[in-house]
């Protein structure tokens, strides 16, 4: 094994003559700094969870949510329900106001049904009145100012809040 000892000694002395301790620290420093920049590469960023690029357009609780483009009422999501379901103690009206909204996430238009939830007094929270495409009452076919709850099987039930349900793609 003597030859191995000589080889190790020769290599170590050779390195000590040629390479300074500062050089070693510098190399290690570059390696550490380089490792820290790897997550910034496009490959790594592509694997991250995509943050919401649409802001309020993608938040069902916001008035600016894309499905709410033609709504007129209190958002059921603020009233114990959701954008597609009624709060406990209320019933969804069958007869309703229908419009179309543009979804910025996929660039397509969708038919949206704004079924009202009926049976309790007005929710009073998150009033949203965007009304895109709403027509005056003298054009009744597309006026959303009707109280759709009055058409429910339970007569004269009060309006509580509004949902925004996707019917399908408008094409």
């Amino acid at each position, binding site marked *: 094994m003597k030859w191995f000892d000589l080889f190790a000694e020769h290599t170590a002395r050779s390195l000590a003559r040629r390479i300074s301790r500062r050089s070693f620290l510098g190399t290690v420093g570059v390696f550490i700094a380089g490792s820290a920049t790897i997550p910034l590469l496009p490959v790594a960023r592509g694997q991250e969870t995509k943050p919401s690029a649409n802001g309020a357009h993608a938040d069902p609780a916001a008035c600016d949510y894309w499905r709410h*483009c*033609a709504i007129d009422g209190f958002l059921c999501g603020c009233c114990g329900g959701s954008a597609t379901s009624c709060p406990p103690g209320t019933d969804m009206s*069958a*007869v*309703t*106001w*229908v*419009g*179309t*909204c*543009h979804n910025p996430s996929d660039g397509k*238009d969708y*038919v949206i*049904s704004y079924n009202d939830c009926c049976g309790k007094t007005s929710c009073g929270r998150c009033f949203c009145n965007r*009304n*895109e*495409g*709403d*027509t005056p009452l003298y*054009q*009744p*076919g*597309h006026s959303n100012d009707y109280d759709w709850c009055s*058409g429910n*099987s339970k007569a004269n039930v009060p309006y509580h809040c509004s949902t925004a349900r996707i*019917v*399908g*793609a*408008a*094409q």
Partner: protein
Amino acid sequence: MALPTVGYCYEPRVNYQIQCMGCHLADGTGESGRVPSVRGTLVPFSMISEGREFVLRVPGVAQSPLTDADVAAVLNWMVRNLSDAPLPAGFRDYDAGEVHALRGRPLAQVSAARQKLLERVQRSDAGARMNPPTRSDGD
């Protein structure tokens, strides 16, 4: 952009959803006492001239923002997809010219006209075979 007006080219099924479904519902049943069902009446009505005239003069057709051709396409889609009875062999499709000739004269007394037509259809042999509903669903 919320509603289609002239210039939007939707297929008849989507035009039904946007222009008609809010009241007549997705399957055409409507709401008893408030919105009439089309399921048992549209096809029998479409088999006689008085019935076709009624269909083209009801408020939803007469006041629709759709073009004459689109109204005809929606009605032709409805008779094939929202009817309890199968389409009779002698059915003639609606076309833009027929729609144009009649939709300009909206009905004033829709419920009364509908009731009269129901009785007329029930009396006729064709109506008896198609077994239309016996009650009026209002207007």
